[in-house]
């Protein structure tokens, strides 16, 4: 499973302040720590960044690439900032991921950018009609996004379908629907579609002491359904061990006594 490290997020106070003050050090430290812990991509979330989005994303991408040779998952709702991030990205280490498009018209330009620059793109199965009711609903939305992707010249292998993980504390019945959608997404194309989740949303609103437990077990279930990418905290060793163990049990990696140390 491909790990997208989630730590550089505007939601975290330390990161938000560093972004505002253009203080590179705390952001670079998080990038290095996540890369060393096994992240394949580094997510850089700057939020809407309405005032100076393009400049901020350009700066953030460049300072991360000063310290890690990993592609970046560009996380913003600001289209101009997204384009600036794509342009600043050093593709020698892999293509960036545009995070994200959806079936909402205001998010279509993100998909268009992915087509224009040949990047990967997270496609959230969220439509204009509110939250999807079940796995079938998610598939309908996914198909519409895929069709639009073809119009914009996005190869199917560049689309990462996101089944939209919802809070278990308030919408318990959705957890299995999202899991089931992952398996169904794969069948929408040959070769199978890639999938991604923002995992921690499952435990949003739950007390802190149960959050990591819910996250970890849910990740195991999603990998079993065929999940290919996850936006998670790679510094959470239990989480990384869970992913490695499930993949090993599934025969995706070869067992050795020290498999967790790999």
């Amino acid at each position, binding site marked *: 499973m491909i790990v997208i490290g989630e730590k550089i997020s505007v939601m975290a106070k330390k990161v938000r302040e560093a972004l505002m003050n253009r203080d590179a050090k705390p952001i670079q430290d998080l990038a290095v720590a996540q890369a060393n812990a096994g992240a394949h991509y580094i997510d850089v979330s700057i939020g809407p960044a309405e005032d100076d989005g393009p400049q901020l994303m350009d700066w953030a991408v460049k300072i991360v690439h000063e310290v890690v040779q990993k592609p970046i998952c560009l996380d913003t709702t600001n289209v101009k900032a997204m384009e600036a991030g794509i342009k600043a990205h050093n593709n020698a280490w892999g293509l960036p991921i545009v995070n994200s498009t959806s079936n909402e018209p205001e998010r279509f330009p993100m998909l268009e950018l992915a087509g224009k620059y040949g990047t990967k793109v997270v496609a959230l199965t969220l439509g204009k009609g509110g939250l999807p009711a079940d796995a079938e609903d998610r598939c309908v939305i996914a198909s519409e996004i895929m069709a639009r992707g073809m119009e914009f010249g996005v190869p199917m292998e560049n689309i990462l379908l996101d089944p939209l993980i919802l809070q278990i504390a308030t919408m318990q019945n959705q957890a299995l629907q999202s899991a089931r959608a992952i398996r169904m997404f794969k069948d929408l194309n040959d070769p199978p579609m890639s999938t991604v989740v923002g995992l921690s949303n499952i435990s949003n609103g739950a007390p802190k002491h149960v959050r990591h437990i819910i996250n970890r077990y849910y990740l195991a279930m999603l990998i079993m359904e065929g999940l290919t990418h996850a936006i998670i905290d790679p510094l959470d060793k239990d989480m990384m061990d869970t992913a490695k163990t499930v993949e090993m049990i599934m025969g*995706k*990696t*070869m*067992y*050795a*006594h*020290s498999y967790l*140390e*790999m």
Partner: protein
Amino acid sequence: MALVIPKESYSGKIYNVTLGTGAKAVTIGGASALPYLAFEGTFPNKPAVALEVTDIAPDDWPETVKKAVSGAASNPVQWAKFCQQNGADAVALRLIGTHPDQQNKSAEEAAKIAAEVAAAIDIPLIILGSGHVEKDTQVLQAAAAATRGKNCTIGKAVEENYKTIAAAVMANDHKLIAMSQLDVNLAKQLNILLSQMGFDKERIIMDPMSSALGYGLEYTYSVMERIRQAALLQNDPMMQTPVVCDIGANVWKVKETMAADAEVPEWGSLEDRALAWEAVTASAMITAGADMLIMRHPGAAAKTKELIAELMG
């Protein structure tokens, strides 16, 4: 509608490992697809065929193979030169005389022979212990130091003694053969352990433990298949080292390479049969992805090289 041949795509690749020095250095590995599927990947290097030499006279070798090296076999240096003249890509010096049940030669004596052989040939030298876990640590340590600068291939390191041998190989800038007993998981584990002690995994050659045709060869074959699948399809960095098959020592121990014509007339001539037994064993290992073979009979080695040339053609 035109027929489209389905192709597998591979995410991994076998490391290139260079053995020896100078113009006769040999590079093995580099495959980017399952063995010889040239329409799916590239095979930049042909498998190397090493001929075996022992530090003491090969008295326990069967007549057929002894005869093929006779005249040279009484002296390891002469014998190594004979192998080089007979088309070997490398010489594998097995220090069998150091085994306590053989002549129990000292590490110093063995190292001296290794250095002499290394100096006498241009092609790469492989230095093998006697297979005695404790004695090999001393012998291979001394041999590694005595051949410093020759980029030799030294082994075999096993789970019980890898630390000392790997340290000596690392300190003297050689390559290492890491052997596990017909077990992919233990093979991977040994490579992880070596990496964790700071040994560069791109200097390791894996020995999955060989056998002879008719005597469990299919187990080796399966293990090698599994190693290559993990290396290429699962992109497992610990399985991407080249593989060596030490077959001569197994082949020239079985009845088919020893039984006289009169004893089993229906088996045909011993001479042809024995040579074919080693060549056919080699061919199976080649098709399973072996990057290097250690063989005994120069005639069987020549046949194997013909096959390799055809496969690479």
